[in-house]
């Protein structure tokens, strides 16, 4: 595991959308949270888990 740039970018964007939704919970913000932010969080989480798994395989822990 060297850096987590893409995962961090996806999560930061998702946090920004979710934060906007928390500030002003209108229909467009809700749709952005439901249809964009949540998948971005999943992408970030899965990307992170994949990097951890690869790291553990490299170190022969798994």
């Amino acid at each position, binding site marked *: 595991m060297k850096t987590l740039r893409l995962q961090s970018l996806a*999560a930061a964007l998702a946090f920004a959308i*979710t934060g906007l939704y*928390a500030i002003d919970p209108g229909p467009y913000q809700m749709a952005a949270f439901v249809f964009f932010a949540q998948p971005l*969080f999943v992408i970030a989480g899965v*990307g992170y*888990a994949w990097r951890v798994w690869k790291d553990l395989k490299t170190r022969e822990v798994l």
Partner: protein
Amino acid sequence: MEITDLTRILTGLLCAVGFFLCLWLPRVDFGKIDSDRKVHLGFATLSGMAFFKLLALAALFAVPAASVAVANYHTIEGVHGVESCNRCHVMTPMVTDMHDPHSQTLAARHFRNGWIPKDQCYQCHSDYGLAGDLQAKMEGYRHLARYTTRSYEEPIKYRGVFPNDNCLKCHAPTPKFQAVPSHATVRARLADNTLSCLNCHGRAHPSREQRTPGHTDYPRLMGEDE
């Protein structure tokens, strides 16, 4: 302060923390962290690698999971208020009419007489949308997608049959309801929704024609002539 306000504040705080962690995380090169570096947290001392990996876990897993959970609580539970429904402009005619002291629709009469003290939309549509069961939630997401992509036409139409249970849950146990002989006659048809309460008790909201752009009542219902 209500719990929905608290969830919004908590979501905002979690997002702020998560956002700044995610801005900082790309600067960390895990291949170049000094193996001798120690990080003192007051209650524990960690190696630099363990500390940064824990922060990555927080930024990309723990804080996002908490943010999604709290924000979804707001999405599902925080949408019961009339103002939440009124945020979509297609709902404005219903809300304007409900608040109209001269309207004779069921919604307006329930509101005017204080029969439903709060969350008036949700109390009669408790099976609907993000607050209802799984099928209702899917329907709510469909409405959200169609509204935000503007893939709908005014006036909007109620899909399916309005369940009488939404009326009967309050009215059926009352002596006033039970004293009406025709209610006993049609009990089975009310139970299986082959007869609507609205057949005898009138319109719940303004008609589809009134809610059509161009109709003389449309500007008033949209609150444009105030």
